[in-house]
């Protein structure tokens, strides 16, 4: 097994759901130390950090080492690695770790590879800490887009917790029950979203709302109901303004991230397209409807930024998550060539 293949197999074999990344982080830092990184350490947030080169121009390769929950069996069949995190997003992180080693770096470049913690939860703890430690000239976020596709943008996000508690009334009466209050608020949200989307065909341009959870019950003479509503925000929608528009005495908004869209002509995009073509591919661009650590660091670093990584993001969070190892090796070649072009 190639060194890069051993790396991803081992890293996927170590469960690392959000907030429980320590074993995987230490494995990656040890791998970096053994394979010639100039520095490799665990930072104060618990991120794995590896540095190659001594130039004064930082290129940060920011992947995440935590995964969505669940831990389906890890195995390789027909050159395909199955297991949680193989696509989202240890494939991209290992592409960064191996590709940075393989690259013939320009003398003025220092590459920083980060395996950030807690990307899959609203805290984004690892990325937020990394944002205070570096000021890169360029940044690539590690998320699956396919080896020949470059992610230029992510939607923003807002979460609203809605909670209601009130005295019970006889079910034969006219008073609304707690779940009926919840449904009334959800219908208000749906009407707001439908009005916003009335003349917008593009999925990336639409405002999306999802009822993520709803629970209700009785507590003595009181009824209660809680809902979690998630929003995906297109460019131009301020999450705080949306929260204000939908606020009432029962709501609590959090997890605000603005949408981010990169210039398709920035130096990273140019270098990646050249490298993809050199590998025999035809480069493509994509906007994603989810969010990533790009939403966190882009407004802070304000540098050219894109996301890249092997694999099919439609497999994110699924029990059948898998990554073709030949695509992974191709992405490593693309990443190494990209770094040499910058």
């Amino acid at each position, binding site marked *: 097994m190639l060194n890069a293949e051993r790396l991803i197999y081992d890293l996927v074999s170590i469960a690392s759901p959000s907030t429980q990344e320590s074993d995987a982080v230490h494995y990656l830092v040890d791998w970096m130390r053994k394979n010639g990184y100039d520095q490799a350490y665990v930072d104060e947030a618990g991120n794995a950090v590896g540095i190659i080169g001594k130039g004064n121009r930082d290129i940060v390769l920011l992947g995440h080492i935590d995964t969505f929950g669940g831990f389906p069996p890890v195995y390789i069949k027909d050159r395909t690695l199955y297991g949680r995190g193989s696509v*989202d*997003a240890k494939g991209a992180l290992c592409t960064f770790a191996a590709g940075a080693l393989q690259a013939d770096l320009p003398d003025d470049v220092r590459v920083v590879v980060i395996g950030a913690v807690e990307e899959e939860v609203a805290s984004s703890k690892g990325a937020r800490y990394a944002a205070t430690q570096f000021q890169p000239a360029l940044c690539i976020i590690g*998320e*699956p*887009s396919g080896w020949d*596709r470059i992610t*230029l943008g*992510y939607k923003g996000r807002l979460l609203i917790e809605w909670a209601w508690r009130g005295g019970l009334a006889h079910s034969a009466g006219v008073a609304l029950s707690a779940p009926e209050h919840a449904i009334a608020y959800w219908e208000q949200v749906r009407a707001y979203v439908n009005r916003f989307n009335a003349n917008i065909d*593009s*999925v*990336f341009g639409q405002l999306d709302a999802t009822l993520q959870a709803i629970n209700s019950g009785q507590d003595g003479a009181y009824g209660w109901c809680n809902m979690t509503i998630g929003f995906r925000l297109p460019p131009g929608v301020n999450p705080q303004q949306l929260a204000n528009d939908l606020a009432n005495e029962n709501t609590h908004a959090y997890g605000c991230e603005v949408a981010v869209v990169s210039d*398709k*002509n920035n130096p990273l*995009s*140019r*270098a990646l*397209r*050249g490298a993809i*073509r050199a590998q025999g591919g*035809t*480069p*493509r*661009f*994509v*906007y*994603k*409807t*989810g*969010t*990533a650590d790009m939403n966190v660091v882009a407004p802070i670093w304000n540098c050219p930024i894109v996301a890249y990584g092997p694999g099919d*993001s*439609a497999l*994110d969070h699924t029990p059948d998550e898998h990554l073709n190892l030949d695509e992974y090796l191709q992405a490593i070649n693309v990443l190494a060539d990209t770094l040499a072009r910058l």
Partner: protein
Amino acid sequence: MCPECDAELNIPADAMENEIIACPDCGAELEIISLNPLQLELAPEVEEDWGE
């Protein structure tokens, strides 16, 4: 020549490989695949996809 409409194009002197330029006639976005010899292709369209 624009590969979309055959219009004559003036490539800026400081143009770079893989830079995307717009055809002044038809507005098509073109990627400079090679500067010497000059080779242009239609730039990729932006797709939309679910996920992170």
